[in-house]
């Protein structure tokens, strides 16, 4: 029994933990697609002018917004 423990101690060295393999490819692809979509949305909102949001008060439903320029 003691001999077995001694042998185990001699051979027992903790190996270095393996290196992190990195971010999976699907996460990178997902990130790129999400980034592009957000960028596209921002460009579209700015190119379209977007509604003017002038918060005047903050009632329970959020601020009252003025879209008077939008109302014809």
């Amino acid at each position, binding site marked *: 029994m003691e001999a077995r423990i001694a042998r185990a101690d001699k051979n027992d060295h903790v190996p270095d933990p393996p290196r992190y393999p990195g971010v999976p490819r699907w*996460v990178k692809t997902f990130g790129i697609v999400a980034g592009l979509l957000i960028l596209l949305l921002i460009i579209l909102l700015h190119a379209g002018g*977007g509604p003017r*949001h002038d918060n005047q008060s903050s*009632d329970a439903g959020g601020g009252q917004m003025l*879209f008077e320029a939008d109302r014809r």
Partner: protein
Amino acid sequence: MTMAPGLRKFALIAHIMSSAGLLGAIASFLALAVAGLNSPDAPLVRGVYLAMELTARFVIVPLAFASLLTGVVQSPGTRWGLFRHWWVLMKLLLTIFATVVLLLKMALVSYVAGEAAKTPLSRSDLRQARVELVVHAGGGLLVLIVPMVLSVFKPRGLTRYGWRKQHERSPVLQL
């Protein structure tokens, strides 16, 4: 962290119910938004925007928080954890993103509903705001379909934290 099997099942059911309910509620919201944008019938348009505000405030927002909360509570009790696997982390980030955008857009929903309650809206009134409601409802629906797909496929990949945790345990297991 371990969770009793009964409690884990209960949390999972609550999470699935709130997430699926949220998806259904947003689909209804989108249908209403499209009807409100295209219908020439002023009383219908008025009813649509009032219904949209009620749905958003009393169904969509509570379900969004329930989905987020039940997910956060339930996941550490499973072998997947909350920050260990990329697919779980992605689901969390997407749900947070959708909830934040929803809260930001609540003011717009209330504003259009308020205007619709005051005066009959013609097809050109508040056009941009009404288009924005359709776009955000459609976008929200698409964003929330992704977590559903991730839950089914559970694509591989540990985060750096998950990797470290896994290899912290393995020397003990080797002895």
